[in-house]
């Protein structure tokens, strides 16, 4: 018998429910029937690793990766953090996809018709990979807040989208993080969809003066925790 190393179950106290009344679009787009429990197999404990991925120089610098040779407008920020599992073990060499609005709160996307200026020098997309200690770092500009149609006078707080895979299909995570002190955060249904106060706090980055570079950019820290491996593996397939 080979030992199959399975992962902890998804921690539903940490994640939003599929349907959250204050976020209108969620009501028709999430499963209503009870999820069917699935005991993890080889299919779930494996997943894409992107271990042969070669990032182009500058993919982790969103201020200069629009291909124009010029720099994006806005407040430069350095974002650092660690990707860990639930047992605080680093998740090394894992890919992070990043996307965000520009400094004026507009996305480089045809669906976004918010009448704020586009910045020709800002695409709003980047990638980075964690090092052996699970640490990552990228440079960008602070995104602006923007209006949306969820409810009257609705505004999304400034946020950056992140996509991670971790070591297995079950460790997939797509999230958004926010900036400390933003007055729009408590009004945001997407942020508020996280069921616990502690959970919501885990979506806030913190200002990191040790990361701030003099005469250049402000630093923010955002650590990410993915599902960890079960402590006691059970016997699996041959």
């Amino acid at each position, binding site marked *: 018998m080979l030992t*199959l190393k399975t992962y902890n*179950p*998804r*921690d539903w*106290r*940490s*994640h*939003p*429910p*599929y349907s959250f009344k204050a*976020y209108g*679009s*969620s009501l*028709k*787009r*999430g*499963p*209503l*029937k009870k999820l*069917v*429990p*699935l*005991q993890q*197999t*080889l*299919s*779930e404990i*494996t*997943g*894409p*690793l992107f271990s042969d991925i070669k990032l182009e120089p500058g993919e982790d610098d969103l201020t200069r990766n629009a291909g124009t040779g010029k720099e994006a407008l806005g407040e430069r920020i350095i974002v650092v953090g660690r990707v860990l599992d*639930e*047992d605080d073990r680093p998740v090394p060499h894992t890919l992070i996809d*990043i996307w965000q609005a520009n400094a004026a709160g507009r996305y*480089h*996307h045809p*669906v*976004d018709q918010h009448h704020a200026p586009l910045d020709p020098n800002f695409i*709003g997309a980047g990638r980075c990979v964690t090092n052996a200690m699970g640490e990552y770092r990228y440079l960008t500009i602070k995104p602006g807040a923007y209006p949306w149609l969820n409810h009257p006078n609705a505004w999304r707080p400034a946020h950056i*989208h992140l996509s991670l895979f971790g070591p*297995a*299909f*079950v460790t*997939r*995570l*797509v*999230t958004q993080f926010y900036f400390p002190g933003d007055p729009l955060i408590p009004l945001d249904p*997407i*942020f508020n969809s996280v069921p616990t106060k*502690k*959970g*919501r706090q*885990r*979506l806030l980055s913190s200002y990191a003066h040790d990361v701030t570079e003099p005469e250049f950019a402000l630093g923010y820290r955002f*650590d990410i*925790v*993915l*599902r960890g491996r079960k402590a006691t593996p059970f016997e699996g*397939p*041959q």
Partner: protein
Amino acid sequence: MSKETPSQTVGPFYAIGLTRHPLSVMANDSTQGERIRIEGQVFDGDGVAIPDVLVEIWQANAYGRYHHPDDKQEKPLDPTFTGWGRSGTDPNCIYSFETVKPGSVPGNDESVQAPHVNVCVMARGMLVHAFTRIYFAGERLNDRDPVLKSIKNKARRRTLIASRDEQDGKTIYHFDIRLQGENETVFFDM
């Protein structure tokens, strides 16, 4: 012990970060196995096909081995095939993948799983991704598959079976995903 970072929706603008480059063609001319196309639509609770949905799949190669160090089976790896793909939708709200039919992989307790593709669905309006699986119509192993058998409501098992079609000599499997409604697709807690 730390707690998981909460999930948040991919939102309507995920294409900027996630589908700038095409990632839905998973097989090339040298890839081993039967070439197939998987395509379908994802429907919301009103039965409307969703344009801003993102579908990711993960599968074994034609021999039934995953491109991953924790798959220690003595089956061949195919250097041309990672088994992962991602698709947004076309103007008709159709997602699609060009891939190969996966081989069968072992299940737990010495069981055998029917060939299947693992699916992760994300969309604007989905605060958390949803996991499901695609099985293939007509596979003899489907009746013995431990995951399909674990779905107590037998009628719901059908929501995981892709139907087979041929167009211009190409094999196409259709797999629609219904997030809600009478024929809501089976989603897994795993």
